[in-house]
């Protein structure tokens, strides 16, 4: 186990370092002058550009710039925003990250149980009617771009069904936009969370359920399943005790990987619903050419993704001895 942990940690640090180097280089090495971009393009005077270059430390040597930047990021000094005057990047990002995390949590709570059930049903009835129906569902409705499903939810569910006589009778109400103050509490935000969370759930549903299906099918072909069945154990017991226990173990990894998907999906969903999260902040930062804020947001996302993968691998190794003994 110790050997496994050591290797996994070295891998983590190496990947983290390389990703951060890439994020750093992305905004430095590309043709064009970042200082001029920030200063406002061609109209900026040479003096303005020089001032910004000084502020960002762009006159130092490249390796030194990288180390200073990474050190600042790790110490939580993410600088001041240009796009949102008066705020500090760290405060802005942590406020928005909390909102995105709430959305992601609701989406995961909805999607993981549903997609596990769908995946197991599909896997147990491989190539039969339930499997075909579920695979059609996950391939079609669920694989639509988030903005299509998001706009459908807003325009049809919220504006037509959510406000009509039926909705009044049932006491439903779906707000069509999630335009809540960015610092609202969870209970204040909850009504506005449902529709974007459903849109995000659809993103994950296809992904998790298809991997679960593959896991169940693979597990059903193993020798121990045949042995157990031939021994005379009831098929139901074989499924519950043996197959599902082994087939659902990799789900931990699947959920960790699906976080990468979820983050991309959330960017689009937050824009569609006007939700004050990290994704909509990223879009605003790119549009306003706030390169420091962009770098910090991408770094935060990469940190979340790499930590999620690290924890998933550790949990998996803890539960499955074969992995850690390899």
């Amino acid at each position, binding site marked *: 186990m110790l050997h496994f942990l050591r290797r996994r940690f070295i891998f983590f640090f190496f990947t983290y370092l*390389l990703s951060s180097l890439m994020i750093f280089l992305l905004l430095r090495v590309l043709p064009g002058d970042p200082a001029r971009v920030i200063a406002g393009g061609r109209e900026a005077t040479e003096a303005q550009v020089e001032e910004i270059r000084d502020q960002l430390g762009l006159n130092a040597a490249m390796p030194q710039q990288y180390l200073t930047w990474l050190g600042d990021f790790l110490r939580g000094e993410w600088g001041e925003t240009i796009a949102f005057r008066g705020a500090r990047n760290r405060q802005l990002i942590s406020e928005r990250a909390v909102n995105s995390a709430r959305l992601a949590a609701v989406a995961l709570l909805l999607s993981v149980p549903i997609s596990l059930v769908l995946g197991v049903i599909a896997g147990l009835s491989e190539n039969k009617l339930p499997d075909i129906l579920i695979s059609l569902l996950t391939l079609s409705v669920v694989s639509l771009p988030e903005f*299509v499903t998001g706009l459908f939810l807003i325009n049809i569910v919220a504006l037509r069904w959510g406000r009509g006589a039926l909705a009044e009778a049932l006491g439903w109400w779906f707000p069509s936009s999630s335009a809540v103050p960015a610092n609202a509490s969870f209970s204040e935000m909850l009504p506005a969370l449902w529709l974007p969370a459903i849109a995000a759930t659809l993103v994950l549903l296809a992904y998790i359920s298809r991997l679960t299906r593959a896991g169940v099918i693979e597990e059903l072909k193993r020798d121990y399943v045949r042995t157990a069945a031939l021994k005379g154990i009831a098929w139901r017991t074989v499924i519950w005790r043996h197959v599902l226990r082994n087939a659902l173990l990799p789900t931990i990894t699947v959920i960790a990987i699906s976080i990468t998907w979820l983050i991309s999906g959330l960017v689009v969903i937050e824009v569609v619903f006007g939700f004050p999260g990290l994704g909509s902040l990223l879009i605003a930062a790119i549009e306003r050419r706030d390169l420091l804020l962009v770098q910090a947001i991408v770094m935060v996302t990469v940190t979340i*993704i790499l930590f999620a993968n690290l924890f998933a691998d550790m949990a998996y190794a803890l539960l499955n001895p074969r992995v850690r003994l390899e």
Partner: protein
Amino acid sequence: MKSSQIANLIRSLLRQPQSALGTLLVLFFLLPALFGPQLAPYANPNDQSHDARQPPTLDIGALQLGEYPFGTDRLGRDVYSRVILGASSIFRIAGLGTLVSVVLGSALGLFMGYAGGWVDEILGRVIDALLAIPALLLALVLVGIIRNLDFAAGSWQAGLADNVVLLVISALYIPIVARVARSATLDIKTREFVEAAEIRGESKLYIIFREIMPSVIPSLVVEASLRFSYAIFLVASLGFLGFGARPPSPDWGLMVNENRGGFYQLTPWALEFPALAIAVLVIAVNLMSDGIRRSVQKGA
């Protein structure tokens, strides 16, 4: 892949109802992509000479298109013509992006897998680190920066900036394809026929392209179809977020974005028809690429 294998693949695609439907729909969408200017009633997508906010005249029951099948938008442009003319850009960008990334990514992956050793190790780690950044985020950042750079009009850099989405999609998918090609190569390179070629004294390039590549192609075909469906998805999403084609281009994602919010109440059809086109195309491409995966895996 020989032409008989391609024929086999197409035959098995058409045999399953799901993938047959997907393939036929993709072929149907290719018509406006290839012959858009001939098919559209108004070849200029920005022809504003029509009455604004006309509702759709399409009558599916009577099989009649009418004057404005999908209505006109708030600027008086024919939505039907714009949807037809928008097909070519999504196919061009997603198709070329897939082609470039599959060709370059396969070459890189074959080379990494065959060379092995520290070259493979270092490139593999770089790819791991790149893949830790979600593709959409990377695409947004790259497109956002490159588009804001000032280039003299007509210079080669300006030409690149005009095709920034295509470039970014190709660049993003190269490492993903390389990974697939690499692991397929690792599987093949221990086979006897590769060893035999090595003993014969064939050159490295000969072994990679003449001995290993033919066996890797089935996995590359599956990966290419998967990449194409993701590329369609990405082009549409970037267009919607305002990071794809610039207005007034008839890009489907852009049209959806331009007609949402308050404008939706005014001209719902100007949003619904391009959104429907995206939805049907994405589903069709998904069904087709799932069919390709199934047929290739069955054949292997």
